[in-house]
């Protein structure tokens, strides 16, 4: 309550300026469904302007959407939410534009529990003391196409990567040899399988602890397919330890078909693909149990790992196994590097399946993504130079917005 009084006290002596006119809200031409276009005619006497938004109705409650801006501003692209993957929380939005005079305080910057209350108080004070437009309604609608330079660039990239892949695949089929840099970590995988075979011990494979839809888990599943095929060729065993039930199901499928493709469907034992627990450290303890009691000769950790990386790798080290790890999780890489024989770093994880299979399609995609890397490097350099000379063209090019 005392906040409101404070604001009222601040605002009260000030003579009200005129409200802005002609406030209109439109859905932009190529909208992501999260953005609304506002335009208005700025009043001559406003020192600054502030935009209020409500998702409930004309009566509010109101929140500060944007501003304060200098009083001459006449348009704004308003994002109703900052999370690009979400659909708008509400179907309709209402806006009011408030004209402020020189002495109006900026919106409060409060944290925690008081923030909502402080904002409410501030808004109430504004509406009480300053001239504002009437509420105008807008409805964000996602359009099928986006003309945002970021999206267009992304589309162009996807199309050109696809085109490059097709082209490289075609070239490969015609006998052009495609070179892939040597990666000892991947070479070591096959050696590790051989070692396990000779020692009469299984290979342990851990596809990370993230959900199936994580890109690293998907890459890991692809690799698991090829590794299990190799394991089957050696007529050896592979134990897969999974943290997510659905990942286990996929791993089961993938390992089974790996054995089938190798021509040894009868050698596959589904009991070796195990779901341990979806609780991170319970999973870690369970996997450690496998390491300690079944003593796999080779451990392969490929996928997305978190804090368990060091625990697993250290247990494996104690077990004197050959360990090959790979993750794109930058924070966990140091631990793998410290405790494993070979570590695939970041991008290398995504190159494994192409490297192992030598499948022209996969190799082509690797090559295409290499081109993207070069493109990005060129853009970084050019963009930085442009930015330094004041042009934000390249930054905007890479910005995805409505």
């Amino acid at each position: 309550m005392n906040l409101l009084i404070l604001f009222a006290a601040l605002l009260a002596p000030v003579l009200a300026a005129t409200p802005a006119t002609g406030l209109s809200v439109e859905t932009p031409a190529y909208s992501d469904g999260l953005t609304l276009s506002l335009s208005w005619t700025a009043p001559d006497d406003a020192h600054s302007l502030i935009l209020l938004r409500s998702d409930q109705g004309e009566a509010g409650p109101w929140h500060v959407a944007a501003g304060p801006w200098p009083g001459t501003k006449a348009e704004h692209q308003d994002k109703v939410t900052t999370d690009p993957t979400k659909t708008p929380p509400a179907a309709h939005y209402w806006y009011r534009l408030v004209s402020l005079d020189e002495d109006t305080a900026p919106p409060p910057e409060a944290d925690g529990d008081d923030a909502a209350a402080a904002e409410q108080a501030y808004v109430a004070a504004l509406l009480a003391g300053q001239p504002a437009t009437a509420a105008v309604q807008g409805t964000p609608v996602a359009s099928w196409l986006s003309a945002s330079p970021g999206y267009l660039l992304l589309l162009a990239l996807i199309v050109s990567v696809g085109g490059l892949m097709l082209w490289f695949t075609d070239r490969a089929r015609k006998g052009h040899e495609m070179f892939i840099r040597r990666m000892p970590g991947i070479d070591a995988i096959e050696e590790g399988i051989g070692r396990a075979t000779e020692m009469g011990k299984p290979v342990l494979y851990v596809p990370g602890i993230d959900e199936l839809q994580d890109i690293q888990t998907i890459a890991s599943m692809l690799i698991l397919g090829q590794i299990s095929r190799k394991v089957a060729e050696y007529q050896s065993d592979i134990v897969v330890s999974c943290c997510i039930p659905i990942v286990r199901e996929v791993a089961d499928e993938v390992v089974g078909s790996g054995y089938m493709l190798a021509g040894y469907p009868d050698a596959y034992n589904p009991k070796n693909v195990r779901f341990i627990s979806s609780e991170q450290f319970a999973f870690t303890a369970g996997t450690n149990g496998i390491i300690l009691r079944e003593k796999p000769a080779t451990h392969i950790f490929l996928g997305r790992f978190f804090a368990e990386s060091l625990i697993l790798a250290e247990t494996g080290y104690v077990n004197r196994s050959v360990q090959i790890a790979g993750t794109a999780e930058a924070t966990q890489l140091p631990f793998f590097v410290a405790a494993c024989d070979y570590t695939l770093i970041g991008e290398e994880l995504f190159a494994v399946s192409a490297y192992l299979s030598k499948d022209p399609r996969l190799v082509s995609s690797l090559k295409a993504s290499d081109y993207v890397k070069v493109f990005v490097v060129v853009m970084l350099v050019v963009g930085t130079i442009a930015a330094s000379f004041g042009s934000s063209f390249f930054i905007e090019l890479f910005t995805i917005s409505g």
Partner: protein
Amino acid sequence: MSAPSSSSPPVDKDKLERVLATDCGSTTTKAILIEKVGGEWRQTWRGEAPTTVEAPFEDVTRGVLNGAQEVAELSGRSLVRDDGAGILRTNGDPTKGVSAYISTSSAGGGLQLVVGGVVLSMTAESAMRAALGAGAIVMDTFAANDRRKPFEQIERIRQLRPDMILLAGGIDGGTRKHVVALAEMLKAARPRTRLGGGFDLPIIYAGNQRVTDDIERILGEMCDLKVVPNVRPVMESENLGPARDKIHDLFMEHVMAQAPGYDKLMRWVDAPIMPTPGAVGLIMQTIARQRGINVLGVDIGGATTDVFSVFDGTFNRTVSANLGMSYSVSNVLAEAGLSNILRWVPFDIDEKGLRNRIGNKMIRPTTIPQTLEELKIEQAIAREALRLAFIQHKEFATDLKGVQQERTIADAFRQTGQDSLVKMQALDLIVGSGGVLSHAPRRVQSMRMMMDAYEPEWITEVAVDSIFMMPHLGVLSSIHEEAATEVFEKDCLIFLGTAIAATGEQKPTGPALRVQFRLPDGTGVDESIDSGRLRRWELSRDDEIEITLTPLQRRLDVGEGPGKARTAKVRGGVVGLVVDTRGRPIHLPDAAAERVRKLQEWVEALGEYGAGGQSRWAGQGAD
């Protein structure tokens, strides 16, 4: 390699004065006499005769006696016992006989082995190494992961008729399942021996020692099973000796005993008969050990090419079964591809015609090149055969696979993995043998072929085996090592000279290397050699000079680091000193016309070929 058991009494090497050595090859039996001349061991006389293993003679000793007789006639001392039942021993009379007789054999196709292991690149490879080291030809390698279905493996084993089988697999205490599966597969296949006859196929088991009982139960009844210690007791090391010795023993007991006349020959010799390649390997190892050098040896034959290497004391041998100059010449074409052969031909040639020529060489393997053009084509093919066999060798001669690595954090980014043991920069000596190298009309041609195929780096000596006496010296080294190495250096090898090349990124034009030295006659040489050149100076084997090599490009390295000069002592040979600035790998222009021009330039620089022209009768200015 320790000498396998034999009935012969041990030889007292101090009493050796004169040794007769024979090598019973598949077509000829070569005999040489090695004598102590004025305190030095020298090879003095040699003779040869057709091998007599096959019909109508069917007795290897007849060829041996014929060969020995030829040596006897040349040397004027009787070597063969009057009753023809052996080689005459000195027995106190210094004008007659020899103090020892030794022999090798590759007659009847040599010692043919099938090996098996669990993983192709691990225990199967260890087994292969043991077999190859013993001088065997590995007919096929079976493993759990050889990508063949079991019935295909069985079918193949049934087709093959090996002299024996070496079965390995699993470390001690390792896999049981796979080894037993291999044994069961062998049992189902019921392999038969090559020479047939009334004895069971010898199988040497050198695998997981904890499953010996199972193996005995499965294979014991079916074959002559011998159990020896594991060739790979732990992942981290090999133990090839016992398996190798057992192969030698069985070679004597079974294979030799079956071949016609060998029972006699075995009684004649003073040291166990060795398979020819095994003996060659032995002399290579001896030389490398005695001189403390790294050696690469090659024997290019009509059907196969053997490559031997000793690097830091580790011996490796590979046999490229289908790379040769006559029977398998078409296979060189198939594996290398026509364009790779063509790149060494210093003139334009129609491709279809070349293919037909090579095909005709395959079906007429005994013919020899008559024209210069044919010779050049043949030597182009030889380069590729040598190169391909060398690639196979490099891939095989590596550190053991499947070993846990103690890699540090800095290694995490290293992009090189397991390297070959064959490191050209550390190589000291290349020894070539086989018709196309030993009998090239000009020695410089042999030098060029080896330089092109092997691309020696920094400073490397190149030699050829003059009359292929390495096998003889190999067995000799088993009874008298010093004698063998002495003869090897003095009479066996013809030193061609020293090859010098820089490594590292090289600019295609401009000066590459500055060479400074003083020739024995006092002339000073100080030259800057441009990229892409070959330069030769006459220098004999007896002359040692001090040479200073200065890279003229920042990244070039002659052994002291990029751009740094190096001074070293080098010796020559019949060819002399050859400085090669063609880059490593050798840079050949892509455009045909440009390439031919470059090749001709190199040919001229070394004086490789004569002008060619009408064939001349002997005596009309030959030599």
